[in-house]
């Protein structure tokens, strides 16, 4: 039986796993992080009653269902996230939406959280916008997507561990929106219903239908090659309406990668969609 035996992978097995991940998600594993493959896949290898990474690769080759390869890809994705991550940025999104609503009264705004992981990001948006309703702000439509079926299943269930629920979420929000149940915290179904979850691969799929006013794609691009970042930014540009906003992670930028976006003059850290070659302010005026 497998147990304490080291889960060593031959170079060929590692290459095949890395190629599978890149083919499915566009993510590349740098050579110096190849050890991550073994660590990340160890639980799956054990669970399947296998002994080594090579045996897992062999199982992948003969497996006729996509299920095992999906489990491998899910295990390799970094799904780190938290509620109200970069809280100040979320507040800016709320303020920007408020201004957009004033410019276009009567139209319901549309937001897309791309790479939403286990749902903390779109749920934070849903909580924030619901809280802002009392000040007269209308809640936008929120579409949230991820390539990982496992992450989406967790997001739809809205169940979080005690560690997850305490990251970024204030105790007041926790008790207003979640119910404790056997060590887990379950989101109020009404809150979960404010978000529409869909599976979507940024590396391969076109943008979801319709244009969005604000698109968040935070802490996703950093795992892609520069070439793929450009391509994904083109997809995001096609999804954002002119004058709409793009939000990236704290360490990410469009600079040098896309001329569809310029830093927003009004909201620090956010990017505004422009027609390449058109100054941002004229796009803004054209909207009215």
């Amino acid at each position: 039986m497998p147990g304490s035996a080291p889960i060593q992978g031959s170079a060929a097995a590692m290459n095949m796993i890395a190629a599978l991940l890149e083919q499915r998600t566009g993510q590349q594993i740098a050579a110096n992080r190849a050890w991550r493959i073994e660590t990340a896949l160890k639980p799956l290898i054990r669970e399947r009653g296998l002994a080594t990474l090579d045996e897992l690769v062999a199982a992948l080759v003969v497996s006729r269902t996509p299920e095992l390869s999906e489990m491998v890809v899910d295990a390799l994705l970094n799904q780190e996230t938290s509620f109200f991550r970069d809280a100040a940025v979320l507040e800016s999104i709320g303020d920007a939406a408020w201004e957009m609503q004033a410019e276009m009264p009567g139209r319901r705004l549309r937001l897309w959280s791309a790479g939403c992981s286990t749902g903390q990001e779109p749920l934070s948006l849903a909580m924030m916008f619901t809280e802002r309703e009392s000040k007269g702000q209308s809640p936008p439509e929120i579409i949230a997507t991820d390539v990982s079926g496992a992450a989406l299943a967790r997001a739809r269930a809205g169940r979080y561990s005690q560690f997850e629920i305490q990251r970024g979420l204030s105790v007041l929000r926790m008790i207003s929106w979640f119910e404790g149940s056997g060590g887990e915290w379950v989101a109020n179904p009404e809150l979960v219903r404010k978000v529409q979850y869909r599976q979507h691969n940024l590396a391969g799929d076109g943008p979801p239908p319709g244009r969005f006013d604000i698109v968040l794609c935070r802490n996703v691009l950093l795992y892609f090659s520069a070439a793929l970042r450009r391509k994904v930014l083109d997809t995001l540009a096609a999804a954002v309406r002119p004058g709409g906003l793009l939000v990236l992670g704290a360490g990410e930028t469009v600079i040098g990668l896309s001329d569809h976006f310029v830093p927003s003059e009004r909201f620090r850290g956010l990017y505004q969609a422009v027609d390449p070659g058109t100054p941002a302010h004229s796009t803004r005026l054209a909207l009215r």
Partner: protein
Amino acid sequence: MKTCLVVDDSKVIRKVARHILETLDFQVREAGDGREALDSCLATPPDVILLDWNMPVMSGMDFLRALKDSGLPQRPKVVFCTTENGMAYIRAAIEAGADEYVMKPFDRETLESKLQIVGVA
């Protein structure tokens, strides 16, 4: 440098909390029960208090009430830190004036996140 008073009757918990808080650049003081904590606060108020619930001599709740009545001009932020994770306990803590609530076990991220929420980290 901000100061944090860790109030817990368990030496181990105080040690773990101290370690985490020091990596977050806090100056740490310790108290083993509510009474000690109150004396410490009245002598020099910290910026934030990490407060256990069940302690001998004076419980976290009794401490919180006493702190309220003590007339300190600027009340430190109070983060309850306890194994009690029922809604009734959490509500009672908030009603008694706690600013945040950490359910044990906690890790560095939990603590950092809660300290950010109360505005001291």
